[in-house]
């Protein structure tokens, strides 16, 4: 049987299928809370062959523990009994893992469909050529079989065939209290409603204690891939030409994203109007244009009076 767009899960004799005796309709499979790891390709909960290199490894995890990686193969728990299976339903998993506190184990319930029934009705490809292909015995409730094969009702991940990729397939997790939207991945801006929980960016290498110069409140979240320092930090930005058009829009967008904006413009009335609309802690600086004698102007005195070039400097407004 070829692995196609869904994952078959064959329950072994140690796992009593909950769907025995039921028609091949979507059913719900639940498992008790026990740690185990499954590959999305195989999706098996315990014994049996494991996939050599599953594309996605799902873990039942708590807090910031790694949720996906391409490196390790699935590990089976040696503990007897039924295992807690994860799901390839990305949205459900993501929702759960981002919503639950770090101390909580995640329990997922997925819809599964008895897909192998149709496959089992197919012709066997290895039949004797003289006799031609013959139908295989069906499994499932009408065949009185206790072996049920099911697959996720709507698998989100299609496992590709072919060689593995060397690309980094790690995922960046969102901590329980992390920012959202644009700020999911450490925006320097404070998202609306979260005044002091944003992440730092860029800069030089952190000092041995994990801090970058000028940054405070760094804490490591302990994730495998790093990139998880969260700081109490707000961006200080300066936008020139904020009196109208793009400058106004940029200043407003930065302020909405949580940055402190210092707006600069030669038009004091327009600039103040814009910055007043944004409000504190943002502020306005008036830009003044003053003649700046260029070397060429000095060399030709007749030009001094006509030099219209401006030298921009900012003075507190």
């Amino acid at each position, binding site marked *: 049987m070829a692995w196609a767009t869904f994952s078959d899960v064959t329950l072994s004799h140690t796992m009593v299928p909950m769907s025995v005796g039921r028609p091949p309709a979507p059913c719900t499979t639940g498992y008790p809370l026990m740690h185990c790891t499954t590959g999305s390709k195989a999706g098996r909960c315990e014994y049996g062959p494991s996939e050599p290199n599953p594309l996605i490894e799902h873990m039942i995890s708590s807090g910031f523990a790694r949720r996906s990686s391409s490196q390790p193969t699935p590990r089976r728990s040696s503990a007897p009994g039924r295992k807690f299976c994860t799901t390839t339903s990305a949205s459900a998993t993501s929702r759960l893992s981002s919503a639950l506190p770090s101390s909580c184990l995640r329990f997922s319930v997925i819809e599964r469909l008895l897909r192998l029934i149709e496959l089992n009705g197919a012709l066997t490809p290895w039949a004797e050529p003289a006799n031609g292909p013959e139908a295989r015995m069906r499994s499932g409730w009408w065949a009185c079989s206790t072996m049920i094969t099911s697959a996720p009702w709507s698998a989100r991940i299609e496992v590709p065939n072919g060689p593995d990729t060397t690309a980094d397939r790690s995922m960046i997790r969102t901590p329980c209290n992390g920012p959202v939207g644009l700020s999911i991945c450490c925006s320097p801006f404070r998202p609306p409603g979260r005044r002091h929980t944003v992440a*730092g960016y*860029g800069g030089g290498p952190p000092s041995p204690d994990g801090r970058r110069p000028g940054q405070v409140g760094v804490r490591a979240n302990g994730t495998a891939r790093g990139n998880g320092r969260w700081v109490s930090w707000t961006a200080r*930005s300066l*936008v020139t*030409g904020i009196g109208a*058009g793009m400058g106004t829009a*940029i200043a407003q967008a930065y302020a909405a994203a949580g940055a402190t904006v210092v707006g600069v413009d030669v038009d004091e009335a327009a600039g103040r109007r814009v910055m007043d609309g944004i409000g504190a802690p943002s502020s306005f600086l008036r830009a003044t244009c003053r003649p700046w004698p260029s070397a060429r102007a000095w060399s030709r005195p007749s030009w001094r009076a006509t030099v219209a070039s*401006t030298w921009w400097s900012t003075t507190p407004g």
Partner: protein
Amino acid sequence: MASHGRLDVVVNNAGVTKSLGFFDVGEADWDRIYSVNAKGLFFVMQAAAKAMRDGGGGGRIVNIASIAGKGYRGTSNVAYAGTKGAVIAMTRIAASQLARFGINVNAICPGVTRTALFDQVIDELVERLGGTRDEAEARAVRSIPLRRANEPADIAALAVYLASEPARNVTGQSWNVDGGLHWD
């Protein structure tokens, strides 16, 4: 700096232009346009980079250039196009020289954008070439593949991105926001 302690992001948006034919660009026009669009931008960028370097935490500089700097034929005048080309070049050089301080420098190249400057250029076009304002605007928009002029918010959205963490590895680039007017 004294009142805010540090500087993390600078947007060099200030700029001037006017609608002028090739033979109409005078030296005063040239000086003014270059002083504001190129010289002013550079020294703001230099001062900001100093503050960011001294702060030690890196930073982001976003320069507002224009597709005129890449050869867009509908530019307001040749001097303006020259200044915007200078902005793009300065952005690249600054990005390479400031990278070691953790400072990312990028440019945004707006196309036709509905701003006061756009209104002014349209008025000057009407005055110079005749016709109505609506016709001039329609001509400008008709040349855009997406048939839509920028709103200032279109530029602001990219400016926010370039200053955010997801853009941490983006530097020295010039981003067109123009509805498909110019590819480069």
